């Protein structure tokens, strides 16, 4: 399939979807299923009434903080577990356990441990991002060729030097993939935490949801969709720029 035909098909898909949405929306009405045109037309009012963008900006800060902390912890632990059989054996059962734990089930516990504020939201995002970054980095670290490490040893590189100058660059493509999966989960967790305690952007979704009309609710959903897609694309773009060999690895681990 030519590139042009592929783009035409994608565009057609989006147009058909929006048309179906519009027709269904007009038949069902704003209360049940607001049509696309009403959602876009009502968007300025949604932004004003719910202070949409300032809520988003506030949530974004907590998201970035928790996500980056989770990434750093995931990279360090994943590399350590991938390179040391002892650490792997000691941590693996607990990591597997955390991996299946539902983030939502942690929310009531984390409220007691961290309160309703910044620490709570950061902790929830952290807990959702770390395991995916850890797992992908771990698989990457296990596959690092011994040649690289032996060369580092031959040049008498210290442990820190080996980590920063040999392991991290070798793991870079894996880390980027892990970070991309982790980001999707971090955004989900942020919305879970915020809808539960009704603050930030999740709070906007909750409050818009109890309105009679679905116009604001759909506006908020479209906003979080755009933000999520944009952040993911930014990570991909960053990956392509900083590591051109990233593309092929990405396909392998998708």
């Amino acid at each position: 399939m030519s590139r042009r035909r592929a783009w035409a098909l994608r565009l057609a898909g989006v147009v058909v979807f929006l048309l179906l949405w519009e027709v269904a929306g007009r038949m069902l009405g704003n209360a049940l299923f607001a049509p696309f045109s009403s959602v876009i037309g009502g968007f300025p009012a949604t932004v004003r009434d719910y202070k949409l963008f300032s809520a988003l900006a506030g949530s974004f800060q907590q998201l970035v903080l928790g996500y980056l902390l989770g990434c750093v912890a995931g990279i360090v632990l994943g590399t350590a577990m991938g390179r040391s059989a002892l650490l792997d054996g000691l941590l693996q059962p607990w990591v597997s356990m955390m991996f299946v734990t539902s983030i939502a089930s942690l929310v009531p516990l984390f409220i007691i441990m961290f309160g309703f504020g910044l620490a709570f939201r950061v902790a929830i995002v952290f807990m959702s991002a770390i395991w995916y970054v850890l797992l992908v980095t771990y698989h990457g670290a296990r596959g690092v060729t011994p040649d690289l490490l032996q060369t580092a040893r031959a040049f008498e590189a210290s442990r820190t030097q080996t980590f920063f100058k040999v392991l991290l660059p070798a793991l870079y493509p894996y880390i980027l993939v892990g970070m991309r999966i982790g980001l999707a989960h971090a955004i989900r967790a942020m919305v879970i935490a915020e809808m539960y305690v009704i603050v930030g952007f999740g709070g906007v979704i909750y409050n818009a949801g109890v309105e009679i009309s679905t116009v604001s609710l759909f506006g908020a959903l479209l906003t979080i969709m755009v933000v999520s897609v944009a952040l993911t694309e930014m990570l991909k773009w960053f990956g392509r720029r900083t590591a051109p060999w990233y593309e092929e690895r990405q396909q392998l681990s998708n």
Partner: protein
Amino acid sequence: MTLKRSLMLFPVSIVLGLLVWEAIGRALPKALLAPPSAVLGRLLTMTGDGALPLALLGSIQHMAVGYLLAVVAAIPVGIIVGRNAAVATAVEPLLNAVYAIPPVAFVPFFVIWFGLYFEGRVALVFAMCFFEILINVLQGVRDIDRGLLDAARALEVRGLALYRKVVIPAASPFIFTGLRVGIGRAVNAMITAELFFAAVNLGQILKNSGNAFDTTALFAVILFVSLFGLACQEGMRLAERLVIPWHHGREA
């Protein structure tokens, strides 16, 4: 050597982890972090007196219905879309877009359409599983070896027989991955739904324990749900080995 060693390390890991947790739990006030000795005791009493199994029995209902609906919907849709390159290209951006929306954000919408109770919870479980299964089935069908399809064409295998004898068996490792990831998501969705719609079953126990600052009970329920999730995924892995034994060991 590695397998033996990791088997030996497993009990060490559990004991060491519990000891660290116990030490931290005892150092902190009990309302903050319950020590594992208390949590395991509570887990046993709550299982013994029937509270957790009964609640799980209630929770499994909406989980099973939502999961089965998602499986029944996602597998045919994935196969049909995956076999048609034009349709697959057209729906790909839409799938990515919808997938980018956190499923919980749909809860207010589901409340409007399906209410606060059973049907609403089923809708959330369905939404959280459907895309996960669909994406795997789609990938599996699109990845089918061209040689297999060419051979089928040469042998004039067409229509339903093509799907029954070639497409579905060839895509089945991916379909099973979808089913396994999907059931993990279903357990996740099960407890999420009980916290975000009207609180019932396990979600109600969690909420009440949270309101009572009872971290021992909270840990016990979280542990219980996680163990249930692990059991479901392992069960699915076992089913995979029984149904498609030829794929065993080739898993990445």
